[in-house]
């Protein structure tokens, strides 16, 4: 019996478990609250990057509009938490639903392919951004500044656990990140995931074999959007705010850098890449060497260019010995 490809989850379960244990241990040895918060943000961006990997790495659909779904989740949850209640479960659902809902709207872009799809998603992101930052709508959406004063969620059944405490919120994000990883790992290993990869590799051939490819691309787009919305919800809770800047096309660009540097089509790669990007962005500022402090963009840009030129498979490819 020939074996059909196995995922990272099955190939390296011990490695992943070790990584998980490492992440769980972070609050124990992190020097102070600042670093635990950095870790939370790293995980949030990792969730966002993993959702983009489904779309880009597995689905072959690079998008500059992915951050719009992140913003949808952020704003949806911010509005709910501000005006209704901060209960966690509804917020999780709204994060997913807002992302998925906006994705259904943006799915119009799926009529295009390649570079035109890329530009359409960029246009979509900018439309969303301009609506969000529009000062005419500031009454509802907060305009330029966005929505502020968003409370942290309240856990169901365990209201005593205060999520305003950095370590507690960190564990929440970790739990969500693990859940998202497991869900995505199952999806990409499933027949649906394999068919999606076939569409990425050669859509024409898949159609010629009898696949209604649009259905798969739409599903991937919406699932990725939903998960991006979930990341947005966590971000709004973490930052106590939702801002229009999160929808700008460059946010998606940053996520794509994370995916490529980590290694597309591996889930773990993009997650690690995302964590590195956040560490670079936030961590540098606390270094004693002030001259380096604000130059994360230079470093990230240079590293990224190096990867594009010499190691397009990302760090995962390095680990796998360039087998790809």
């Amino acid at each position: 019996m020939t074996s059909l490809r196995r995922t990272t989850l099955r190939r390296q379960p011990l490695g992943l478990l070790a990584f998980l244990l490492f992440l769980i241990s972070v609050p124990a040895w992190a020097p102070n609250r600042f670093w635990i918060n950095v870790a939370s943000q790293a995980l949030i961006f990792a969730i966002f990057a993993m959702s983009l990997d489904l779309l880009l790495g597995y689905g072959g659909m690079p998008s500059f509009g992915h951050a719009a779904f992140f913003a949808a989740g952020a704003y949806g949850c911010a509005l709910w938490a501000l005006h209704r209640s901060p209960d966690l479960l509804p917020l999780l659902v709204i994060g997913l639903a807002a992302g998925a809902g906006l994705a259904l709207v943006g799915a119009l872009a799926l009529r295009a392919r390649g570079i035109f799809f890329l530009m359409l998603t960029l246009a979509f992101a900018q439309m969303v951004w301009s609506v969000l930052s529009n000062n005419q709508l500031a009454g509802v959406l907060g305009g330029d500044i966005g929505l502020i004063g968003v409370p942290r969620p309240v856990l169901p059944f365990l209201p005593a656990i205060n999520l305003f405490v950095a370590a507690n919120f960190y564990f929440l994000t970790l739990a969500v990140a693990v859940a998202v990883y497991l869900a995505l790992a199952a999806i990409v290993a499933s027949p649906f995931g394999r068919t999606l990869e076939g569409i990425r590799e050669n859509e024409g051939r898949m159609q010629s074999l009898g696949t209604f490819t649009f259905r798969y691309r739409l599903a991937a787009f919406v699932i990725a959007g939903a998960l991006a919305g979930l990341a947005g919800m966590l971000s709004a809770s973490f930052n106590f705010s939702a801002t229009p800047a999160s929808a700008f096309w460059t946010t998606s660009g940053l996520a794509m850098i994370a995916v490529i540097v980590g290694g597309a089509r591996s889930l773990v790669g993009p997650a690690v890449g995302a964590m590195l990007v956040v560490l670079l962005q936030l961590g540098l500022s606390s270094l004693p060497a002030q001259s380096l402090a604000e130059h994360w963009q230079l470093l990230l840009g240079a590293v990224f260019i190096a990867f594009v030129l010499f190691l397009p498979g990302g760090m995962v490819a390095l680990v796998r010995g360039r087998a790809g």
Partner: protein
Amino acid sequence: MGRGPERRSRGPTGPPASGGGSACKLTAIEVALSAVLNGLAFGGLIFLLAAGLSVIFGLMDVLNLAHGSFYMLGAYVGLTVLGLTNNFWLALIAAPIALAILGGAVEVIFFRRIYQRGHLMQVLLTFGLTLVFVDLIRWRFGPQTHSLPTPPGLEGAVHIVGIPFASYKLFVILFATVVAAVLVVAWRKSKVGAILRAGVADREMLGLLGIDLSRVFTATFAFGAALAGLAGVVVGPYLSVYPGMDESILVLVLVVVVVGGLGSIEGAIIGSLLVGLANAIGPLVLGGFEAASIFAVMAVVLLVRPRGLLGLRQ
């Protein structure tokens, strides 16, 4: 999560360095006319950027997101030259030359290696370059806004049908028109233009005709960068110079290229006029939603006629 403290939420044009007209008692017609002239000036500026990007995209299939960075670098080169020599016209010449050299170098060092890798990698490479450039600029010049002083002779305002309009903006309109005319003539009549047009329509054919594609690519890229640099200096006295000006203008240039058509100079002219006017008149009519509308138009064009109004490429 984002690029940093750039002025993202202020909209595409950034804070203007000098106001357009005096602030008192303008009637509706005067406001409208003023807006139209502002739109033409801005459109002229965008054209300088869109022309280069459109030809690069049409010929080389490269979506150069770093085009905005070339614009920004040109502005800062202008700032530096002006600071050293106090001569605006020298800056106007130095910037395009400097950017042509930089553009050519970027093409040779980076792009040549990744042409066969597909669109995504090229686009992402240019995105990486934008990060590097903006950081370098901020490092050297600081995050504050600069503006170039208006060159002597072009200060003040002229009165058009009684409305004061900054002389410099008129200069921008005239300058852009002259450049546009030269480019159109070169595009349609010269041998170089013929080669480029042929390349846009069918790149393989160009190779088969024995033309050295890599030289054409380098030259095209360098030329596009030079135009962007030129735009950067031109914009100095009129809008502001700050690290982040690349980001705000880039999306508008993309809209022009998409709407006007990939690989078409005439398309870039029409697109720039449309976008420039929409950007100026929009706030009066649509009250804040002009940005969304501009991008909506871009989306519609991409869906219905991806090659744009006058584009040749499929």
